[in-house]
């Protein structure tokens, strides 16, 4: 490969990484905008109630309690979204680190839930019981897992659930993404996903048939069996 080709390849990879980051943040900020919108309108409702009181319409304590509960509910929802986005963003802090694969995949599944919901598809995450530590780049790892989820969603059937399962095995660690699909995938998306899996230090296997698709990302893990990080 010539230096020019190498440079082009690096630029291409960088665009893909930015696209992944953009897709996650666009989806999450859309959801956050919904939360802020509800809080803003609820504050407006309070103003309406105060204006009504000034015109002689008494404010009901029950209504006030309902408004307060709505604000608290949406605030908690917003904080949850921000926390997940923050954990995701910090995956870019260090290119090489040791991380808890259950925590990282669990967070990514939550961030992907809205994208799946737009296709009327549910996501179910099954963590391991042992919380295996992985060594590598958590951002690239997430891109591989997200790619697998997106690939199954792209041909997934509405009103079904895609299952993301982490499994510790004797020689490594596996993330499988499985769901009911409406058809076969082309070679292009799978070749792209295979390249991302390799970059993340893993490999991709595909099982498809009978209206089901199962993508498995196989990784090596550190021998550590220490508990989950806090």
């Amino acid at each position, binding site marked *: 490969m010539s230096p020019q080709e190498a440079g082009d390849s690096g630029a291409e990879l960088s665009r893909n990484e930015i696209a992944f980051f953009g897709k996650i943040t666009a989806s999450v*900020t*859309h959801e956050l*905008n*919904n939360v*802020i*919108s*509800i809080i*803003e*309108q*609820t504050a*407006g*409702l309070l103003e*309406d109630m105060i204006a*009504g009181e000034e015109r002689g319409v008494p404010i009901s304590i029950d209504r006030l309690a309902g408004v307060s509960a*709505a604000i608290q*509910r*949406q605030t908690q929802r917003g904080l949850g979204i921000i926390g997940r986005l923050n954990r995701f963003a910090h995956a870019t802090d260090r290119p090489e680190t040791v991380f808890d694969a259950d925590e990282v995949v669990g967070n990514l599944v939550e961030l992907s839930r809205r994208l799946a*919901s*737009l*296709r*009327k598809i549910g996501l179910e995450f099954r963590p391991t019981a042992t919380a295996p530590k992985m060594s590598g780049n958590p951002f690239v790892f997430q891109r591989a897992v997200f790619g697998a989820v997106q690939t199954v969603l792209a041909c997934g059937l*509405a009103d079904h659930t895609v299952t993301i399962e982490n499994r510790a095995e004797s020689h490594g660690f596996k993330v499988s993404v499985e769901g009911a699909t409406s058809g076969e995938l082309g070679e292009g998306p799978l070749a792209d996903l295979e390249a991302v899996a390799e970059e993340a230090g893993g490999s991709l296997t595909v099982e498809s048939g009978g209206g089901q698709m199962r993508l498995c990302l196989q990784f090596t893990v550190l021998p550590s069996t220490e508990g989950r990080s806090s």
Partner: protein
Amino acid sequence: MAKARVLFIDDEEEFVKVVSERLRSRGIDVDTAFSGPDGIAKATEHTYDAVLLDLAMPGMDGLETMKHLLEYDAHLQVIILTGQGSVSAGVEAIKHGAVDFVEKPADIDTLVDKFSEAQEKRLALFEDDISQKMSNLMRKKGW
């Protein structure tokens, strides 16, 4: 003029409920639906001056929902609700038949103004239709 009758379609139920309550207190007659198919079903059962329609909904999205709504009632005034920074999506919706778009969280008084305009515009469209039919009839009869 009678109250503007509006159908609000959005999957964010809590947003729909609070906005609807505020619109009702401002004299707008609001009906609600939490999905495209539910909204289409309501629009075939009742007559509305305008529809406030979210673009990003699970399953049938706003653009597809609007297509069905306009097939059923070509004079229906569809106002699109978009997320922040989704101006291009709003413009795209106008190309497909929406009359306007508003970014969430949406100012309540702006919405009321838009519904009043929509009601007047819809009435004018029906008047144009009647006028056209009368004119055709008179020409046909040689009056």
